[in-house]
């Protein structure tokens, strides 16, 4: 027997011994059989549920903090007050920031879902392998490159000595200030959200039977009519999911308003400032609670009106 064979046999023997030992140990456990009992299912999910409970417990903690008294030295003291909630109504700066966040989020949600539909459609339907690969690459490179890196990319493109101003200078136009304008922020947000929207849309579009489109064309519909009356209605679960995901991501965005938006800050920037600027934890807790409530109301309204979309399909057991 060659050395190699012997080595291989030895390894197999060790592996099986280890397996026997594990099985032996298992049999001493009090569960009895694993597969049969449904109680074991609860054991399996308990770790995942426990992990997520950090956030559930934290939400309750935030609610509690929102009724505590702010103190400039101790951060907060354990005396209950409604002052933080009253302050919410009085802080007009927050109202401005909040309505700005809602407005921009709504706009970029419509924009990114609108831009994502043709892209997702082509990813699913194109029969050219190379083109499809290029589209997927264009989708995943930004998805796998963090938001900070991409915001930095926009700073280079739109900056004072950046790409756009260089191009403008070469046609004789003077330097234009883009950074800090709403336009730069909208571009940044759209580019951030577009990959998410496409990823939410593709499963829905992939589930549309291509024969339906051919049927529409046979009945005399042109390409636009087919798209409008066949593809769009059938892609609705995907559109719903994409709307929810992009809107909630945009609502909570911190880095793009901070780096590209100048003074046009979002709720997240406002909250961050309360946490680290003035260390006002109770008021920050109020703001967080409001943000969560508004985001949840939005999601549940969409769920009620349009169904759960592909988000529901994904959590449903098939």
């Amino acid at each position, binding site marked *: 027997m060659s050395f190699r064979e012997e080595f291989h046999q030895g390894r197999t023997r060790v592996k099986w011994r280890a*397996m026997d030992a594990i*099985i032996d140990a298992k049999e001493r456990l009090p569960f009895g059989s694993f*597969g049969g009992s449904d109680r074991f*299912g*609860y054991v*399996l999910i308990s*770790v*995942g*549920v426990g992990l*997520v409970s*950090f*956030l*559930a417990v*934290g*939400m309750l*903690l*935030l609610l509690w*903090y929102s009724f505590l008294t702010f103190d400039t030295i101790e951060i907060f003291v354990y005396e209950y007050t409604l002052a933080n909630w009253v302050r919410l109504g009085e802080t007009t700066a927050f109202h401005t920031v909040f309505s700005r966040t809602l407005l921009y989020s709504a706009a970029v949600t419509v924009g990114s879902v609108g*831009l994502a539909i043709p892209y997702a459609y*082509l990813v699913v*339907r*194109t029969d050219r392998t*190379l*083109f499809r690969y290029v*589209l997927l690459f*264009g989708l*995943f*490179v*930004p998805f*796998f*490159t963090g*938001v*900070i*890196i991409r*915001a*930095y*990319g926009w700073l*280079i493109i739109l900056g004072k000595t*950046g790409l756009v101003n*260089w191009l403008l200078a070469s046609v004789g136009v003077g330097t234009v200030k883009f950074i800090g304008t709403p336009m730069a922020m909208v571009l940044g947000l759209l*580019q951030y959200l*577009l*990959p998410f929207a496409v*990823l939410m849309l593709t*499963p829905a579009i*992939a589930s549309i039977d291509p024969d339906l489109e051919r049927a529409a064309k046979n009945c005399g519909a042109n390409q636009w009519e087919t798209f409008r009356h066949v593809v769009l209605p059938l892609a609705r679960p995907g559109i719903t999911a994409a709307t929810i995901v992009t809107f*909630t991501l945009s609502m*909570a965005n911190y*880095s793009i308003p901070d*780096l590209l938006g100048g003074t046009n800050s979002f709720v*997240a920037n406002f*909250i961050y400032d309360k946490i680290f600027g003035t260390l006002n934890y109770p008021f*920050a807790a109020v703001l*967080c609670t409001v*943000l*969560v409530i508004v*985001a*949840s109301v939005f*999601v549940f309204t969409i769920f009620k009106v349009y169904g759960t979309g592909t988000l529901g399909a994904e*959590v449903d057991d098939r």
Partner: protein
Amino acid sequence: MSDLVRRFGGDHPYLTAFALVELVFLALPSLIIFVVSFGSDQIISFPPTDPSITWYASLLQDPEYVQPFVNSVLVATFCTALSIPIGVMTALGLNRYDIRFEHGVQIYLLLPFTVPLVVSGFILLILFGRLGWIGDLWAVGLALTIINIPFMIWSVSSSVNAFDPTLEDAAQSLGAEEIQTFRYVTLPALMPGIISGSLLMFMLALNEFVVSLIITTTATETLPVAIYGAIRGNISPQIAAVSSVYVIIAVVAIVVADRLVGLDRFLHS
């Protein structure tokens, strides 16, 4: 251009042209970083003069980036390693066993996506602060596992659903013990889901920003937080060189993902 569109586009010329514009829009911020990183000027300017790798060379000696880079890799590895068993257990438990209030549990497990990231960050700052975990690197990894775990559960769930449970019965009727069945039948069948989930978890953890910004200290600072700090200071092309490293990692990850499980898998998870 029109020729290119016709060659690529086939049935949908206008749609294709539109998608190509979007492609440029999507890729430009990443690509431009590359171009700039090879400049040798002290400030960012267009077009870069004197191509050089000065800024890349300077990175290796700069503790400002080396430590955060190591931190980021450690955090992402910890996060991935932690999420694999949790993802497999949760996906198997939910899809294979009769769980009461299953729908409710599934909605509960989506909590990391429904709670805005800045709120999650604040929550974890308070909780970890009370537990005395702030300043520990593993706690950063735990935080990123909490906020991204649904990706892993989805990814493994799709493999669980695609797997025929009668194969397990077959293995057992051939005399395999339960654990043997799991190790040699179930686990290999779940591998595609585990691999794509792990890649997602690793890449997202490597890039995570807001929660990291809130809960890291100087010692546990991750690379995106360090880059953010540098951008707020001055936008030297050195940042472009660090960022290019990220773009390269992203490209490598995509190629690896495509080779191992195919990019299509990621579209459905």
